[in-house]
């Protein structure tokens, strides 16, 4: 039997990964990109970086096109109060109580002790219960062999096969590597956002009170998506509604 470096309880005490989104900056970045290219459906740096890093294929038809991260355009429901439109990234929320894990028949979906919800593709039978259960629509099904839609391959991340469900993993391979080396992990989307975008995304450990994300959560009013469902999602949206 293998002895691991830390026990699950220790990991649970020490690390809980989460992401914070500065909606104001995200909107700015998207509006600038759209003004520059004139394309309403342009993919911002975060999405492109995610696709390339995680071998997410691209297909012409939207129904079959898996997306780990999407940009949604939203309006507040009272335009007379605030007519402004916002752009927010939608990705897997890595809930504290993930409904997708509860419904998984084969226990392919599971939650790691550090809070990342992951899929074991070897066990996934493609029943898509998790896609129905997920209130955020974060999961995609591989209708077509992803290799057909890949132009470049990142050897560090496995490709998927047709007939399995996939979703954002917070770039779990980067996290494991960084934790092993004792560095601060940074997912591909966050890296791209800081390099080519406006730095709207912040990733970090909310169990560490000195981390940047802990400060953001303390100092801002943050919104969780569909918090009334009790899933406790860990992607936080700050400055939503232009406060």
């Amino acid at each position: 039997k293998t002895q691991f470096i830390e026990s699950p309880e220790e990991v649970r005490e020490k690390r809980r990964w989460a992401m914070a989104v500065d909606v104001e900056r995200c909107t700015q970045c998207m509006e600038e990109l759209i003004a520059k290219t004139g394309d309403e459906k342009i993919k911002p740096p975060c999405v492109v970086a995610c696709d390339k890093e995680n071998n997410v294929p691209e297909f012409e038809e939207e129904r079959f096109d898996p997306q780990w991260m999407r940009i949604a355009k939203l309006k507040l429901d009272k335009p007379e109060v605030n007519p402004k439109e916002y752009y927010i990234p939608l990705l897997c929320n890595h809930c504290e109580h993930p409904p997708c894990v509860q419904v998984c028949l084969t226990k392919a979906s599971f939650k790691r002790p550090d809070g990342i919800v992951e899929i074991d593709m070897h066990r996934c039978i493609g029943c898509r219960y998790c896609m129905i259960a997920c209130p955020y629509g974060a999961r995609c099904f591989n209708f077509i062999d992803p290799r057909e839609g890949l132009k470049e391959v990142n050897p560090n991340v496995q490709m998927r096969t047709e007939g399995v469900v996939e979703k954002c993993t917070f770039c779990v391979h980067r996290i494991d590597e960084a934790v092993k080396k004792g560095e601060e992990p940074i997912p591909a989307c966050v890296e791209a956002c800081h390099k080519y975008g406006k730095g709207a995304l912040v990733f970090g450990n909310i169990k560490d009170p000195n981390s940047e994300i802990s400060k953001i959560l303390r100092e801002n009013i943050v919104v969780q998506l569909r918090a009334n469902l009790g899933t406790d999602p860990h992607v936080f949206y700050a400055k939503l509604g232009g406060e």
Partner: protein
Amino acid sequence: MYNKKYVIPLILVFLIGFFTPYWYNAMAGTLGHVPTLKEPAGNCVEDKDWMAANHMLLLQQWRTQAIRHGAEGGGIYHSFTTGEEYHASTNTCWSCHDSKEEFCDQCHDYVGIHPECWDCHYTPSVEKPHYSGIEELSKYFS
């Protein structure tokens, strides 16, 4: 023996059919063919004979460790032969065995099994450019 004129020819036909693989290999000139494996560049994580028999068990353990227990340090594998630490990933194998055709496929084709590993996992035989990192995106965004 009764029905001799039917039984003996049918037995002969059965024997010819039964030894078809033998005839096939004898005519193709591959009789007694044994797979030849390309010598790997470095030392294996475990003993060579143990690996030949149990590599799927090892890969299965790596899979469970790296996926299910990744947060607890499951990505690190301790070899019980040498005691050294290895990163539990198929890319670790590719660092020594740099050709799938000349190593994995040799035995797998010989015994006629088709593992599904390569439906998803990267092999050096994938003929697509590598994604090297975030710097590449500067051609899209400046």
